């Protein structure tokens, strides 16, 4: 049986387009210091460190070497993870595995991205196979737009549905002191007036590029109870991967085999049969408005073709039955390596009752997901018990 493991502390930087005042190591240090302060710990109390980053964005072969004094890794047991959009959840899940296995008691998980320092879209294009896909891809945007067009065709969601998601995210972000894009007055009309980056995806349908870091402290049961009045207990974790080529699952976004597999696995482990009823809050990795709509289906929040209705009825807004991304989500903040871990940190804050103005009252069970382009999906369930 795995040991019971809880998240006892979190730390985030104020995410923004460009942190030109500090370097990568200093960015990491900000998040790590905040997480350690939150737990009342020093680096010497940490048994092991898990680090996540997408190094092609910054152009460092071993960013962990360059930043080791930022993440406190000198001489400690440590590993680094690079799984695309899921870096942050993979890193958190790895930390969970090490604690749940009983190998270490107190683990620091750290993830970061300083997108302003490199060429994000060019780096993302290298995800594609050079013989078959790279020539046509246009970073995350073009590749995503192709998938979105299939989903729009199959589901019947409209541009207005997508725009409502954009408004929900950027307004929710105003309650999150760490969020990058905070747009309190954004309207559906403004979203619909923003230009197409790649049809059907408009500028305000897509996530920003952010600089930011995130850190978590995880601990086994006895330690966790000492370190936090209410740890966010990790109830279940799952990771799943797709086939190699973008066209192997032509329904990609409409179907998302990896996300269906990962979410069904964590639901089953927690006895969740109706996620909208059983979960109190979800922090999901939605790179674009259409992705959030598709994920409502793939995460079982609604029946096929009903995602537009879900946002029309306000089910996923702050006052709805299942608030999705009270933090503003990826549409408000995308520091890629850190983004999925931010989902876990925000879900943990909700469970710990420390989410401030974005708190979902009485949240007891939360879902956090990571989504790595066409490859990985991760899912975690956090709870009060």
């Amino acid at each position, binding site marked *: 049986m795995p040991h019971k493991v809880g998240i006892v502390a979190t730390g985030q930087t104020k995410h923004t387009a460009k942190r*030109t*005042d500090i370097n990568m190591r200093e960015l990491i240090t900000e998040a790590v210091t905040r997480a350690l302060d939150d737990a009342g710990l020093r680096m010497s109390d940490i048994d092991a460190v898990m680090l996540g980053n997408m190094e092609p964005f910054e152009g460092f072969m071993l960013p962990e070497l360059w930043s080791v004094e930022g993440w406190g890794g000198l001489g400690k047991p440590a590993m680094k993870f690079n799984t695309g959009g899921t870096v942050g959840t993979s890193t958190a899940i790895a930390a969970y595995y090490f604690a749940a296995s009983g190998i270490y008691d107190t683990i620091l998980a750290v993830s970061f991205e300083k997108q302003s320092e490199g060429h994000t879209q060019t780096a993302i294009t290298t995800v594609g196979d050079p013989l078959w896909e*790279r020539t046509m891809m246009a970073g995350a945007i*073009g590749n995503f737009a192709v998938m979105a*067009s299939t989903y729009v065709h199959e589901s019947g969601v409209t541009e207005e549905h997508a725009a409502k998601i954009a408004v929900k995210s950027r307004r929710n972000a105003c309650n999150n002191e760490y969020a990058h894009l905070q747009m309190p007055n954004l309207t559906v009309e403004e979203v619909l007036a923003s230009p*197409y980056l790649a*049809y059907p995806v408009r500028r305000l349908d897509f996530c920003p590029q952010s600089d930011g870091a995130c850190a978590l402290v995880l601990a086994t049961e006895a330690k966790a109870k000492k370190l936090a009045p209410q740890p966010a207990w990790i109830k279940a974790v799952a990771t799943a991967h797709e086939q190699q080529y973008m*066209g192997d699952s032509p329904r990609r976004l409409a179907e998302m085999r990896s996300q269906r597999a990962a979410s069904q696995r964590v639901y089953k482990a927690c006895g969740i049969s109706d996620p909208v009823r059983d979960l109190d809050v979800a922090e999901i990795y939605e790179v674009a408005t259409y992705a959030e709509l598709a994920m409502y289906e793939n995460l079982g929040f609604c029946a096929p073709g009903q995602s537009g209705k879900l946002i029309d009825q306000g089910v996923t807004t702050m006052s709805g039955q299942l608030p999705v991304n009270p933090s503003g989500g990826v549409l408000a903040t995308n520091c890629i390596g850190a983004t999925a871990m931010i989902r876990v940190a925000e879900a943990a804050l909700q469970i710990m009752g420390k989410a401030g103005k974005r708190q979902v009252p009485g949240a007891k069970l939360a879902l956090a997901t990571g989504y790595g382009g066409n490859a990985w999906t991760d899912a975690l369930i956090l709870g009060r018990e």
Partner: protein
Amino acid sequence: MSEKSKNPAGGKKEEGLRVPWLLSVEYEYAAGHFATRFFQELRDNGRIWGVRCPGCQRVYIPPRPICGICAGKTGEWVEVSDEGVIVGCTVVNVPFIDPMTGEQRPVPYGFAIIRLDGASTALYHFLEETDPKKLGVGKRVKAVFRPERKGTLLDIKHFRLLD
């Protein structure tokens, strides 16, 4: 001591120094047996071939040695059509650096995921059409081959709408 002499940046708060660095690297990838045969056929005969999985009967393009679903060997080569159906499409307006050339790719350009008749999986390729109103999932397209072919996917110039 004046304020200026204490602070080399001139006494007022400056943004942190930024240091530019340019990476220019060439890579060369081995195509492997299956892609080599596919691209030879495309170059020499203007024909498009996939491979069938004997387990699930899927015809894979790109051709590959293993079916991920059956976790078994593929092997039988099957010719597929140069016509197919759009399963996803876009017109890209956002300028970005093309990692194949290091140059900014001209926009707008149409690109789609296309399932050729006879194939089970779909292929990325360019579309001739750049008006999103004329494109759509389910529309039929046909490959336009280049007269001079080099053995790459760009031996197909783009796909043209049939309807």
